């Protein structure tokens, strides 16, 4: 047979090489997959594999230096995020056991084991599992055609992967990744990143090509490859024990090591050490292409230094996917045990069920309350007994009237309350901090939707449906009446609007919110979480808006809040005005994740709230 009658994939083409690490390429969004003409048979990837670290040894070993971001198509946010990063951050308790996200995991040193999971009845391939020694990264690649979970499902370090064989490659599509590293020197990969992989095996040589698409931190796809060689036997060391502990005794809980924007003291160290232009490490996408050599020759370090700080001008907006469904339906997501998350009515709702009436946290915006009630009735045939409002805000209380009317509180019927109040027990009991009631009365909220059971202390508790439920007041967080609700047996915390995955915190200064209160509240959540494994899972956190989270997302959110506070506080100390603070773009590294220029909560409004709060605190 003539060779070119079997051209396979090689046609007459012109390929451009990536530069530097030779592992960086680009393309457009890699979402979705085309159905193959016919399925390719499985390739056996099973066995023990070790990485062949014949390239990028520094990155994969001791770690690259600050300022070495060459070959990565990072945007301004990614570059500034990395330059603000202080490696001391890993001394923080909640970062000590961070796992590696899947793309970075596959570059880790340490051994890998691949094995198949087949249906014992028909031998169909159900899944391929990968265990990575470093950070005990455990990946499951579903091969049975199941769909990816909805946008509001939790994110994990390894994400959710599905695969199929295409030609001689295993093609893997991964979503629902946590925020992690593109490179361990602070170069971030966001929780909006997706991963496409092609794993090929040539004898005892395995190569995994990873294609990362990250709308938050990258302008083009990031392509890298990793080589592995087959090991004949089990090396016997697979664990990566980690428990967090105190690294710096006495450090205040609201400290997050970071460098001010434009003031990274080691930004030029990399270029100076290797006697290369400053631009070489920080240029972003151009550094992936051959033409970059000419650009390096014509760009001075002084010109390149402009990239070390935010560019003047308007801030970009979030490029994250809004995980909240907008289809007019209520969606139910089981969290743990008898606790569920309801989405779709403009704010997340938590429902706990059992042999007593449902216990609800927050009532949504009120636009779809009838459907909320219908969804709750599918989870429990008992009337709603308790509703907690985590704040007075409309997305927490909008459905109060109808939810209250749809329930009752049998603990009051027949009690001494019924001797005092004719309607005792009629309607669900609405629990909230007293300040919530005060704010709602001020706002002339309809009477039947007002809290009926308020408290002033820092902790309210109930044992209900088999859960010890604790309600903690978080003073002056986003308002003066915020609470979080901890279902202890299910190990679920409803955080209300103190935490969300969709926007900067809505700090309502006029209603008692404050920057420090918000930071304290986020830290209070973290004081109550226990991760299951390598910094993830375990205690689950329901945000006011966004996807179901665990402590990692809260940690990143807390870090962001502290870092922005530090920047604004430093500017205030130097006499900056609000307009100067806004012009400095103090949120530049977070704008593509949380920013907005329109709508009810813009980046400018957030910065103004931070500024105002800190000015008030300074008085």
């Amino acid at each position, binding site marked *: 047979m003539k060779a070119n009658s079997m051209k396979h994939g090689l046609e*007459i083409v012109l390929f451009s*090489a*990536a530069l*530097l690490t030779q592992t960086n390429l680009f*393309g457009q969004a890699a979402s979705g997959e085309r159905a193959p003409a016919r399925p390719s048979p499985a390739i056996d990837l099973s066995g023990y594999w070790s990485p062949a670290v014949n390239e990028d040894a520094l990155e994969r070993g001791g770690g690259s230096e600050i300022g070495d971001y060459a070959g990565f198509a990072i945007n301004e946010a990614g570059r500034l995020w990395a330059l603000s990063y202080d490696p001391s951050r890993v001394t923080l308790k909640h970062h000590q056991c961070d796992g590696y996200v899947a793309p970075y995991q596959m570059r880790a040193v340490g051994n890998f084991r691949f094995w198949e999971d087949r249906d014992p009845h028909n031998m169909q391939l159900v899944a391929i599992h990968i265990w990575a020694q470093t950070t005990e990264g455990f990946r499951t690649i579903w091969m049975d055609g199941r769909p990816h979970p909805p946008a509001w499902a939790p994110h994990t370090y390894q994400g959710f992967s599905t695969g199929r064989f295409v030609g001689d490659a295993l093609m893997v599509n991964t979503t629902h990744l946590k925020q992690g590293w593109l490179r361990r020197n602070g170069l971030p990969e966001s929780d909006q990143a997706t991963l496409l992989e092609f794993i*090929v095996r040539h004898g005892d*040589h395995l190569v995994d090509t990873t294609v990362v698409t990250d709308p938050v931190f990258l302008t083009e796809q990031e392509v890298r490859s990793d080589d592995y060689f087959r090991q004949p036997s089990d090396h016997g060391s697979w664990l990566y024990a980690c428990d967090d502990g105190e690294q710096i005794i006495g450090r205040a809980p609201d400290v997050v090591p970071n460098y001010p924007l434009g003031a990274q003291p080691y930004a030029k160290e990399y270029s100076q050490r290797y006697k290369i232009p400053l631009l070489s490490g920080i240029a972003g996408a151009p550094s992936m292409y051959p033409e970059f050599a000419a650009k390096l020759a014509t760009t001075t370090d002084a010109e390149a230094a402009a990239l070390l700080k935010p560019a003047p001008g308007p801030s970009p907006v979030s490029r994250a996917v809004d995980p909240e469904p907008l289809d007019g339906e209520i969606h139910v997501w089981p969290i743990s045990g008898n606790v569920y998350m309801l989405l779709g009515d403009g704010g997340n709702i938590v429902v706990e069920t059992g042999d007593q009436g449902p216990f609800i946290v927050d009532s949504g915006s009120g636009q779809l309350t009838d459907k909320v009630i219908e969804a709750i009735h599918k989870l429990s045939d008992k009337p709603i007994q308790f509703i907690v409002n985590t704040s007075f805000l409309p997305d927490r209380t909008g459905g109060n009237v109808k939810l209250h009317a749809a329930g009752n509180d049998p603990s009051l019927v027949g009690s001494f309350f019924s001797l005092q109040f004719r309607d005792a027990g009629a309607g669900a009991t609405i629990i909230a901090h007293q300040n919530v009631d005060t704010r709602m009365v001020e706002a002339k909220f309809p009477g039947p939707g007002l809290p009926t059971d308020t408290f002033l202390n820092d902790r309210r508790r109930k044992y209900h449906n088999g859960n010890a439920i604790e309600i903690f007041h978080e003073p002056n967080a986003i308002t003066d009446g915020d609470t979080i609700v901890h279902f202890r047996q299910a190990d679920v915390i409803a955080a209300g609007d103190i935490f969300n995955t969709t926007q900067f915190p809505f700090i309502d200064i006029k209603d008692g919110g404050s920057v420090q209160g918000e930071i304290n509240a986020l830290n209070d959540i973290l004081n109550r979480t226990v991760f299951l494994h390598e910094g993830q899972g375990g205690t689950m956190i329901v945000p006011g808006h966004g996807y179901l989270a665990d402590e990692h997302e809260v940690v990143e959110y807390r870090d962001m809040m502290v870092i922005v506070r530090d920047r604004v506080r430093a500017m205030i100390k130097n006499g900056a005005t609000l307009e100067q603070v806004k012009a400095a773009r103090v949120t530049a590294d977070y704008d593509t994740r949380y920013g907005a220029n329109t709508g009810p909560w813009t980046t400018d409004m957030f910065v103004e709230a931070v500024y105002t709060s800190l000015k008030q605190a300074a008085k």
Partner: protein
Amino acid sequence: MTLPPKGDAESVPLNEQGQKAAQAWDPAKDEASGQQCKAYGAAAIVRRPGRMHITWQDDNTLKVEFDAGTQTRIFHFGAPEGKGGDWQGVSVANWDVPGTIMTRGSFGLQTFGPLDRGGALKVVTTKMKAGYLRKNGIPYSENAVMNEYFDRFDLPNGDSLLLVATEVTDPMYLSAPFWTSTHFKKQNDSTGWNPSSCSAK
């Protein structure tokens, strides 16, 4: 893109002789002696920043041109052709199709043979003139043998990537095979094609 310092052989499994050779690197001497293409030989050319152009020269021959150093590799399907001894050596190519089910020693099993499933292009290169694995003088000898696998991946967005997985063995300078993998993205036209001369510096 940036020339590493002399002696920087990070992660290359050089043996003692290889380390000595790396320390003896003298780019000026290479230039003066007309050896400026030592880092553009077959074992390193895909690592040079630049572009490559793949065409069928005839039914049994692939021609791979590189603008970096203006080099050309020839992949022969079937018997090797040429004497070698130059920068690109002699390359023998074949299609590596793992869809072929082995039946040796078995019975009653079906041999599927090659399926319509793509596969890799495997290229074995020998008889290369001694050169550099890295531009800073990390050596390979004329006894080096290189196995390469070319895999093409089509992305859902229409882009195509080419993965070149490379294994270089060299009894003279390496204590273990040297593995690298390199990526290329398919272009629709010749934009950026910029043939250049070899440079030792």
